């Protein structure tokens, strides 16, 4: 049994700091008990979310900050990324795997995020920015826990 742990990181909106967050998330995932590939998947999902927060959320303005929290217990890892931007509606973003989008040189970040973690939640925080929460279970994902993988299942089980 791994006791719960967490780290929180605050960075200015600079792409060159993305690797710092990637590595920190990967390490916490390893500590939490994910194998090498599982930890890389978590890190890649956090990475993409942080890149979006830096570029789309904060417009690469180094005076704006991105806050990242990664916490894990023996059941799951949760990462939260908050920017200071205007937010967005994820349902309005185009499907990068549609044939008319296949040759676009961007638009694949959210797809990777969704592929690499079990749950993704988006929330506009008034006076703050966009908050994106990622959850990855240590076992077989939420279906194994018998909740049908509904994206709000985690919300009900954990206190915030």
């Amino acid at each position: 049994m791994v006791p719960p742990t967490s780290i929180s990181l605050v960075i200015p909106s600079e792409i060159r700091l993305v690797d710092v967050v990637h590595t920190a998330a990967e390490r916490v995932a390893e500590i939490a008990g994910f194998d090498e590939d599982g930890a890389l998947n978590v890190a890649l999902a956090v990475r993409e979310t942080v890149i979006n927060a830096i570029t789309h959320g904060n417009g690469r303005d180094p005076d704006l900050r991105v806050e990242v929290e990664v916490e894990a217990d023996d059941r799951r890892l949760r990462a939260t990324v908050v920017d200071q931007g205007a937010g967005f509606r994820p349902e309005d973003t185009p499907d990068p795997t549609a044939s008319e989008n296949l040759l676009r040189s961007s638009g694949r970040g959210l797809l990777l995020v969704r592929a690499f973690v079990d749950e993704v939640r988006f929330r506009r925080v008034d006076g703050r920015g966009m908050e994106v929460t990622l959850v990855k279970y240590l076992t077989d994902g939420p279906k194994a826990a018998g909740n049908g993988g509904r994206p709000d299942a985690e919300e009900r089980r954990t206190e915030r």
Partner: protein
Amino acid sequence: MKASVRNIGHVSVVDLSGKITIGEGDVVLRNTVQGLLDSGRSNILLNLEKVTYMDSAGLGELVACYKRTKEKKGNVKLLNPSGKVYDLLSLTKLEEVFETYKDEKEALVSY
């Protein structure tokens, strides 16, 4: 990321190693492919065997290289994507865009 070029007949094999990620590997990839196109070499085979992973910026640069090369009537093909890189190409359906080979000789004769 590191990139080195082997010219074999009219094909340029680019051996890549490391990760192709935003602000680092993607820039190396862009510059290497642009260098080849500038010197008139547009049959390009990217050897991905030693690429550990890519992020969305790396995948985007791969597509951008493909498009720039097509404009010069050439082609970018892929050799031996590793497990994680293969997953990424399949997830994003980019495997439908790129001709992908496991064997270098086979790839070379396909141009």
